[in-house]
């Protein structure tokens, strides 16, 4: 326990994860388990630091590896041990750590763990019931197993980029490392399923998670449609195949800066009539064609133009209020400031504050779920690189003080 631990429910008390994963997917998955009480130990090296330790934002002028808020976002509630895996004795230390772990996670290019003697076959010799989860781009096998990428480019392989854009322009993708948010959950679900299986049978296992395969899950019926009919889904802008009007419309300046937009989704005929009434469009109300979705889908250009004429005279807040008051789905296209200040997210206490000796006080996301009976405590801040090395080498790996000092001298602890 450290000083900023607070009491709470530790669902995964006693579960230790040796986390060799880095960047987004693996660390995000293990962080959710750390929130709920797992002891997650990030295996790190200043020689080959996590990409996000060099990322931003960071306090102005502070360039060391502990200054990245992006790294902090993915690593709260964890410990960090410095092990130079490129050093001949690094693997020996890692093996001792693995022997004390329930779960081993990694996201290196396939082959790396094997090269340092930590393949699943080796790891299970040390810890027979271990659960090991590899989370690579395209899986451990196959002709593209060693192809490289990251969330910004993998979403293209995984089909998400191709269905995000305007029909008359090139696709744009989501602008964030989108597949990270998908594969993370397959990692959590895989590991928790394996832990449950082990609890009942005593049997550990290996999980080969391909971020590509995992990410195809969120394509709905896109893949099954192409596989069985040859049809290929195309980007539709903000339109929908079933509902109209359905779009994101320009609003009046509300003096918060930037351009302002509001999403409106009419999902049934009642909502349509209420919208037409609100906008005082007698012609829309009286039209036989527009009374069902098929007719409205055929008239989308005209409907969108009519709605935009109205939204341009309103602020985003006004449109939300007016439409939600009569049950029409509407919400501002929140930007990051809106998300940061959103009253509903504030009500859920979604942004968790964390104080860090280098980064200072910042807020970071919390899980999208709330558990009624076992809410987690506020997580410990993200660790400094190697902050818990002494604990891990001495307590978990069983090195004496002299051996630990010797490993520092030899450059294993770095």
């Amino acid at each position, binding site marked *: 326990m450290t000083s900023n631990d607070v009491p709470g429910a530790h669902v995964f008390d006693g579960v230790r994860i040796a986390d060799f994963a880095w960047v987004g997917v693996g660390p995000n998955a293990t962080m959710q388990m750390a929130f709920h009480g797992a002891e997650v130990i990030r295996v790190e090296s200043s020689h080959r630091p996590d990409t996000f330790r060099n990322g931003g934002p960071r306090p102005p002028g502070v360039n060391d590896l502990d200054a990245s808020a992006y790294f902090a976002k993915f690593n709260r509630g964890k410990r960090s041990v410095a092990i130079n895996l490129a050093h001949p004795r690094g693997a020996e230390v890692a093996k001792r750590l693995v022997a004390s772990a329930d779960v081993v996670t990694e996201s290196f290019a396939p082959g790396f763990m094997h090269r340092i003697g930590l393949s699943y076959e080796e790891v299970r010799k040390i810890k027979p019931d271990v659960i090991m989860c590899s989370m690579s781009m395209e899986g451990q096998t196959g002709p593209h197993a060693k192809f490289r990428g990251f969330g910004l480019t993998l979403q293209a*392989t995984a089909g998400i980029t191709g*269905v995000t854009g305007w029909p008359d322009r090139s696709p744009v993708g989501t602008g964030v490392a989108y597949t990270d948010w998908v594969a993370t959950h397959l990692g959590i*679900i895989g590991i928790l399923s394996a832990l449950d299986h082990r609890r009942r049978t005593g049997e550990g296992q290996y999980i080969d998670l391909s971020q590509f395969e995992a990410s195809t899950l969120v394509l709905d019926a896109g893949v*099954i449609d192409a596989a069985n009919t040859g*049809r290929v889904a195309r980007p539709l802008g*903000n339109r929908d195949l079933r509902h109209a009007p359905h779009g*994101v419309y320009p609003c009046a300046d509300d003096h918060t800066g930037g351009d302002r937009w509001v999403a409106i989704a009419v999902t049934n005929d009642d909502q349509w009539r209420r919208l037409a009434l609100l906008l005082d469009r007698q012609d829309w109300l009286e039209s036989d064609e527009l009374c069902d979705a098929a007719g409205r889908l055929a008239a989308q250009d005209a409907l969108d133009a009519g709605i935009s004429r109205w939204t341009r005279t309103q602020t985003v807040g006004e449109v939300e209020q007016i439409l939600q008051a009569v049950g*029409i789905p509407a919400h501002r296209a929140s930007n990051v400031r809106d998300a940061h200040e959103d009253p509903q997210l504030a009500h859920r206490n979604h942004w968790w504050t964390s104080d860090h000796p280098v980064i200072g006080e910042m807020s970071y996301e919390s899980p999208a779920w709330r*558990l009624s*009976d076992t809410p987690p405590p506020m997580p410990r801040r993200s660790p400094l690189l190697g902050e818990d090395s002494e604990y891990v080498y001495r307590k978990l790996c069983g090195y004496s003080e002299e051996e630990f000092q010797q490993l520092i001298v030899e450059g294993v602890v770095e």
Partner: protein
Amino acid sequence: MSQTTQAALSPYRALDLTSEIGSLSTMLLAGLGVDVIRVEPPGGHPSRKRGPMLREDQDSSLYWAQMNAGKRSVTLDLADEADRERLRTLSETADFLFESDAPGAMAARGIGHRDLRERAPQLIYVSITPFGQTGPKSMWAASDLIGHVSGGLSSLVGDPDRAPLRPSVEQAYNITALNAGSAALIALHARHLTGRGQHVDVSMQAAMANTLGNARLYYEMDGIVTERAGGARAFADRATRIIYSCADGYVAFVRIPASMKALHRWMTAEGAHPRFDAEKWAGISIAGNNLPSDDEVAELESEIEEFFAARGAQSLYESGQHHGVMICPVNTMQDIVDSPQLAARGFFDKVVDPELGSLTVPGAPLKMSATPWRTRPAPTLTQHQNEILTAAATDIRDGD
């Protein structure tokens, strides 16, 4: 390696009362072995009528086939007290109940979390809603689009001269469902400790707010409101291009330092005579200090454009990756079906659907060495009506 034939979560049962917002969470659990019972209203769940359809008729939904694969089905009229009582009885035999009604709607019918808690203390009751169970927006009308924009992601998606965008498949629903799956299993492990189920409140807005990368952090630390940048990654106030045209479509490529020497070697090997200075670009980060001028970037990009424009997406992928360049094709759904990587890993499977016949379906989204994934067809309406209700009436479950 010892192989059990049991799927990882085979001892468990889930009741699925969700709309499209939750379908994926229970589909995933069904693949992992959970006995998922789709509780449908009389006439069937609305997404049975949702396209794309396999045939001309409106009873051949591939959406239903995909999102409800591996589930069983029972029809209950929850407007009718006798059927609500059947649901309560069923809940005594279940480990999870997933629902996505408006906050309070289940309780108003006597089947909310508190109503079931006494009779079914083991039940993990997962409520999936647009904004969560309480709060100023909890009763707001919503849809996938509303969930998407409410978390902030649309502000980072789309061309700057047009409206913020959502992906044209329901990402907000599906990301939310994945969060619900994770949360349900955390609650299952909590039950191992406490012996009791609990209420799990999942918010679509919160799920989407967690997809903002580091953009919100830049606002909090530096006051920067990052805006959408088309086929580029908006990085605080700088954007780095991702999408390039090629001969038959598009590819994704980011000029990160680690790719630049390899790109130069690759272009040289293909006889393209690259003019850019590989050493220099290998030392230029896409963010931070010492960034190149817009003109320098434009010149580099035009050289890359010209090289990509003469080649096809899949061939750029194969040859670029073999040269160590992080390039990816902008795959269509058909490209995914045709992927040699997925074929080599046996990703696709066949099932015989009682209504649709033989179907090619996506298989396991993760490979677990000791516990098999279950690929099974979606249920027909009332397919398991009698077996489920008869068993529930006689089954006294002994808990976990």
